């Protein structure tokens, strides 16, 4: 299997320079070739493990507490306006 780096980068919201594509393609396809080693393993009937703790139903009660102040919430960005984060216009029909 080969990775279409350009397509996957777009899915991942990354811009890969055209000049970098051959390098990434080579490296990533080498890695994909390696991970395909897993095809050797017979996993017929084997359950998946997505977590190792064995915990279940870990929840909290429905109580609210104080939030960050607006100033704290916005402190990481210099692109704000009237208490809101600001980004270039998002058009619904982009």
């Amino acid at each position, binding site marked *: 299997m080969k990775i279409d780096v350009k397509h996957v*980068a777009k899915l991942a*919201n990354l811009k890969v320079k055209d000049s970098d594509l051959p390098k990434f393609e080579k490296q990533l396809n080498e*890695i994909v070739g390696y*991970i395909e080693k897993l095809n050797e393993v017979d996993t017929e009937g084997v*359950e998946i493990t997505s*977590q190792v703790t064995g915990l279940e139903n870990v929840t*909290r009660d429905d109580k609210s507490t104080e939030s960050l102040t607006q100033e704290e919430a916005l402190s990481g960005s210099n692109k704000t306006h009237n208490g809101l984060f600001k980004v270039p216009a998002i058009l619904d029909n982009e």
Partner: protein
Amino acid sequence: MNNINQLSIKQSLQGIKDGHFSSYDLTKACLNQIEKFNPEINAFIIVNKKALDEAQDADDNRSAGEKLPLLGIPIVLKDIFMTKGLRTTAASNVLKDYIPQYDATVVKKLKDAGAIILGKTNLDAWAHGSSGENSDFGPTKNPWNTDYVPGGSSSGSASSVALNMAIAATGTDTGGSIRLPASFTNTVGLKPTYGLVSRYGIIAMASSLDSIGHFTKTVEDSAIFLNVTAGHDPMDTTTTQEKIPNYLDEINDGVKGLKIGVPNEYINGLSPEISKNFEAVKKQLSELGAEIQEISLPHTQYGIACYYIIQTSEVSSNLARYDGIRYGNDRTHFGDEAVRRIILGTFTLSSGYYEAYYKKAMRVRTLVREDFEKAFEKIDAIITPVSPTPPWKFGEKADDPLAMYLSDALTVTTNIAGIPGLAVPSGFIGDLPTGFQILGPQFSEKLLFQIGNAFEKSQERRVLGG
């Protein structure tokens, strides 16, 4: 007293208690060491300017009768632990100027225990790497020989403890990022059981694999540190709800009668020097009274493949929040390694490939876990080398990501299974240190400390001067 920065946590606490020196003196000694060596070693991203004031406060509080487990002990944090008001970068240009709005749970626990935060340490950006070379702020050097890598990703934490710039340091271990640098720098590195230490407030790499641990100068210190950091956190639903023992209990009970397994799969393909060193470890433990047995963990060879699917998939999702809108710089600031992992992980999760890659890897994960479970039915613990080779020179693997990934071959299975691993120094190959790791069933940290402590006591500790 001279060179107090070379002391362990236990010795420091004793020294302060006995009035030989103050927390202020100790903190000053560490800061002096940082000032002297950091320009060359590059272990720090930021040094906390308030550290001395905090040390003075700690001394005052001690005089006022306060008793806390780490009161006045200067430590450092890997720079992916969120520290309120103190810049946190993940060693990436994406977060170059980010000042967190909150403290990680572990940071809070350490502060509450009286520890002094000296600063934030360098790492492979986003904890992606095995050598420490992949930092956007320059590589950290191995203080034992600066031509060599210190191991990664917790490179700065390992080097700062090895070079006595701090008494102890935090780290994170997703595939070996504590144990590998510990073994490359002659420090003790603990990767706790997944879920023993809260992940809240620590920049996530791969959520189902990330383990929050630390570097210390001795095994006993590792237990003292874990006594502070372990336990349930209501902010992390994956933390254990069990009662936490005192990890110092039984630490001096020795290894007599313990059955320790050595998996075949881990000792094939070692470099001759590592092989020789590991034979000596086996012999030593045997002489101390442990029963060494050969065992098999048959799915070991699939560890790296399984790990690089699960890890990169989770990385691709965990790094999605860095869009430069609410904090930090935009996604063009990611370095090559992050880009590679995001693309690989996005690919393995994408429609049409999910079953063949991600789901397959999660099934193999089950088999790797079962290997360990079966093994632990017959033995108490497992020992293996940490790295198949001694530390390598800068640049040796920098352009070959796959070769870099394969250096984690002996450590990733621990994370896949979620079990604990303790890396303990086991001597030197030339002027470069090496170590071995002790693995046990989930939540068997006490046993690991018991074995590690027995071994450590039988060795002479080499200390870096300066």
